């Protein structure tokens, strides 16, 4: 017989061992929310009932850990994140290459690369400030509560980043905050967070995101400006009489007219290549985010 909600959650976690880490996190949050609400409600209605009997009844209605685990596993098998659905396979390599424009994942990845610059700078600032203040405040009495707040904020940001990664890159990430025992004293909570690998990996991720975000952004702006310039050369030369290359006021270099189709095609090719690359980078980044931000 299960004696406490914590015990139920631990059993459920064991049952879900082979499921996706994100599913486990969702399942634990759902179960905790439901069981606590149901238990409180039942005890309020029937105060003479012992807590153990009440829990027994609540679990009977909710389903045993193995029943619940099966339900999640079955639905998870049928549902795939929106963007992760297979695109219909086109035959030729060229069609696949240019088909990138109709792939939501590629556009999502391009958008993510742009956003990563902003979030990267923010995460880095947050992590550096929080970490260094936590270390230096450790001398004072309020140092530990401050560290707790910092760790909690890291958890929150990790969840937020997960939503972004799932939405734009199509990699399944947790939809609910990580389960923690709510009856812990704040000091034990701090200890739990500090000893959890997940917290430190999330902080590391915040540092890495700064570097990656900058690289992504530079790549994005460079490729975009080169592609657009190539496409714009015919217009600029013919209608505005602007040279492609100008040195001082003397040397003005114009591309010959016959090369216009090649230039435009080159520009489009460059951007298409980048879109394909972005899709790949997005998948890699998603995998990295999943291994660092989701506890197993």
């Amino acid at each position, binding site marked *: 017989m299960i004696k406490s909600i914590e015990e139920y959650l631990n059993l459920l976690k064991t049952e879900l061992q082979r499921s996706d880490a994100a599913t486990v996190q*969702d*399942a634990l*949050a*759902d*179960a*905790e*929310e*439901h069981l*606590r*609400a*149901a238990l*409180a*409600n039942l005890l309020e209605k029937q105060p003479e009932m012992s807590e153990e009997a009440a829990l027994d009844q609540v679990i009977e*209605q*909710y*389903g045993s850990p193995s*029943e*619940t685990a099966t*339900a*999640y596993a*079955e*639905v*998870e098998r*049928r*549902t795939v*994140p*929106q963007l992760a659905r297979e695109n219909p396979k086109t035959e030729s390599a060229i069609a696949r290459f240019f088909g990138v424009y109709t792939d939501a994942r590629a556009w999502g990845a391009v958008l993510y690369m742009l956003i990563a610059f902003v979030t990267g700078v923010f995460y880095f600032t947050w992590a550096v400030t929080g970490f260094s203040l936590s270390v230096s405040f450790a001398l004072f009495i309020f140092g530990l509560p401050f560290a707790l707040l910092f760790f909690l904020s890291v958890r929150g940001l990790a969840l937020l980043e997960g939503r972004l990664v799932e939405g734009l890159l199509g990699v399944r990430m947790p*939809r*609910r*905050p990580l389960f923690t025992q*709510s009856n812990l004293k704040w000091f034990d909570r701090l200890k739990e967070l500090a000893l959890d690998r997940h917290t430190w990996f999330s902080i590391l991720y915040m540092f890495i995101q700064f570097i990656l975000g900058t690289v992504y952004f530079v790549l994005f702006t460079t490729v975009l400006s080169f592609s657009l310039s190539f496409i714009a050369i015919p217009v600029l030369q013919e209608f505005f009489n602007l040279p492609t290359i100008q040195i001082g006021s003397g040397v003005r270099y114009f591309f010959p007219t016959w090369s216009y189709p090649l230039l435009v095609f080159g520009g489009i090719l460059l951007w298409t290549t980048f879109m394909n690359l972005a899709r790949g980078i997005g998948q890699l980044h998603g995998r990295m985010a999943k291994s660092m931000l989701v506890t197993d």
Partner: protein
Amino acid sequence: MVDSPTLTKKFQKELNAGIASLVLLSVLNKKTKPMYGYQIAKLLEDYSGDASFMKQGALYPVLHSLENSGLLESKVEPSVSGPPRRYYEITSEGRETLVIWQGVWKQMKSFVERAIKGA
């Protein structure tokens, strides 16, 4: 020897797989206010009376999957007691889909009834 309780359980589960989505969408369609999991489970308990068709825990993964398909949306709000609660609400896409599903269900129901009666 036929293990009929196990077979019945399996049959019930297979039936539930599709019906749960229809039931959850219908319930959320009737309500003007967003509801959280336990509220929905309570309401379904009232509907089913003494018979229990599915475990309450099995509702949550279905809610997630409906949200994932864009038929529901949800937000998390803190609660006075206990952990924060996820409130679910039907989307306009969900309403449109529900109308279609109700049609499918009606046809299915009369088909099954006719098949059972054999008339």
